């Protein structure tokens, strides 16, 4: 419990997983992973293929057993039936039985999740509407496109109004329109109070959606924090100016990079006072500034930086 009130949605303590391959060979897929998630957060787990992302999710679902450490979903040990009553899951490369219709699948997975009767009927209607598959409800899933199957997967994951939603590469192989639809559904779920654990290597998607991220490489967390914290570049500012005045900037102290054609400048300033001094210098040279803002990296830049450092 946190502050003696509501339990954390997810609490992971030093979770490790080692796969034994026989003859003494072992692969450490996950090394002492810890995390706490509050209700309504969207958390993104990034990492290259084989980083241990899927192993972590499968451990939290009880599909694989941890070698050491422990984890709890709303204070219930992961893998227990009680813990699974609170979760929804969309696995990577899921395969639904092609002979079922979308509605049949929703009904079966709804009942498996403990929803039934009129509540289930209403939930199926609501979710098929939300994922824009209402007209396809009676059609066999084998006739669905990849994007439709992904949206149906998301709907089945949400069927029991889970408090924690695990999504493993939910937008992989989906076109931009499909990705936007899925993003909208996730934002809707978050607004309803669902905590979302997003496992992806589509960095732009993660950047658009998440409150906090961690980058996993070779089973170890190599960076973690809020998206803003991770993408911030301390003491570097971006300035926009009239490209015609580029010559006036030559020789200015602290310039990291200048793009004359677009009229942008990256300026290093150790403090706000230094920043203002340098802006004053530019103004003395009659440079008209259009914008001044702290520089931010993209998550993609950060990702490549930390992975390369490894």
């Amino acid at each position, binding site marked *: 419990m946190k502050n003696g009130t509501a339990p954390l949605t997810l609490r992971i303590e030093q979770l490790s997983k080692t796969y034994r391959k026989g003859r003494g060979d072992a692969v450490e897929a996950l090394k002492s992973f810890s995390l706490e998630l509050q209700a309504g957060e969207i958390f993104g787990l990034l990492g290259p293929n084989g980083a241990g992302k899927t192993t972590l999710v499968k451990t939290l679902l009880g599909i694989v*057993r941890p070698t050491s450490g422990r984890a709890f979903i709303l204070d219930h040990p992961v893998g227990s039936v009680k813990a*699974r009553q609170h979760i929804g899951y969309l696995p990577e490369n899921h395969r639904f039985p092609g*002979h079922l219709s979308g509605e*049949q699948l929703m009904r079966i*997975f709804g009942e498996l999740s*403990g929803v039934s009767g009129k509540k289930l009927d209403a939930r199926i209607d609501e979710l098929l509407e939300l994922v824009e598959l209402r007209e396809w409800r009676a059609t066999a899933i084998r006739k669905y496109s990849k994007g439709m199957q992904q949206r149906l997967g998301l709907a089945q994951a949400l069927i029991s109004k889970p408090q924690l939603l695990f999504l493993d590469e939910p937008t992989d192989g989906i076109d931009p329109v499909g990705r936007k639809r899925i993003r909208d559904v996730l934002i809707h779920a978050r607004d309803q109070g669902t905590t979302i654990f997003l496992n992806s290597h589509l960095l732009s998607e993660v950047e658009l959606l998440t409150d906090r991220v961690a980058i996993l490489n070779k089973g170890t967390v190599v960076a973690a924090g809020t998206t803003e914290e991770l993408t911030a570049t301390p003491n570097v500012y971006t300035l926009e100016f009239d490209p015609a005045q580029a010559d006036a900037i030559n020789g200015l102290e602290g310039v990291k990079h200048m793009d004359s054609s677009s009229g942008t400048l990256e300026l290093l300033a150790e403090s706000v006072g230094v920043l203002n001094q340098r802006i004053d210098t530019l103004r003395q040279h009659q440079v008209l500034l259009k914008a001044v803002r702290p520089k931010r990296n993209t998550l993609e830049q950060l990702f490549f930086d930390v992975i390369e450092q490894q």
Partner: protein
Amino acid sequence: MRRFSAILRETLLEVLSNKVLIGFFVIAGLGLLAMIIAINMPDTSAKIARLQPTPDFPDSAALETFVREWFSISVGFLFYNSFLIVATIITAGLVPSMMRKGVIDLYLSKPISRTQLLFGKVLGGLIIVLACIIFFVGGVWLIFGLKTGVWDPAPLASMFPIMVSFIGMYGILVFIGVTSESPFLGIIIVFLLAGLVSATLANRETTLYGLVPSDIGHTVIDLLYVIMPQTSESAEIAGDIMYGKTVTNYFPMIQASFTGLLFFSLAAFSFKRKEF
């Protein structure tokens, strides 16, 4: 219970979409149709009319024997062995299909125990197989009852040894499905055990004793005979029941039930421990 019934229903829907099952119902339906035609042929109809009890000769034994002979040929000979093959093929994929990557993760993330999940699949397979048996054996019984007026329940009881024989084989099939995740390996091993091995062991005195002359060797062979599915002996029991004979040795049925239970339990244990 609701979760268990959901997995059961999903299994039934899966089996009903199986082309082999559809093929079975088509062929079995055609078989029943052929039987209707055969017993309505002028010669057969005349024979049935001759065997009908009359006020002067009220004994219906001859007509009952006639019906049981037909049962013996259609169910005991044609249906019994071919159906066990078809039932094995229909049900072999149920557990491995659930264990495919991208499918098993979905099931295991739901709040249902692994034991319930596995037994939902197993029970679904058994229900379908029982439905197939009832369809054909019940169909034959109905056709002859309507034609001859003989409503002898004894041939219907032949469904029991067919089902029990299948349970023994199905246990092995489920265990191999869980451990190897391959439907084909399961089919091959069950066919080998229930066909080749079972027949060889049933005739062990003429086939195997000569190869292993020692008493210890004979004891080992006898032990193997006891623990392996006794398909041909089960077929004999089915035949005896159809003919209304007293069955003196139910051991093959006990053995098949035990094999089924043992392998279902081993499959459940293995499935519970497995990581995906």
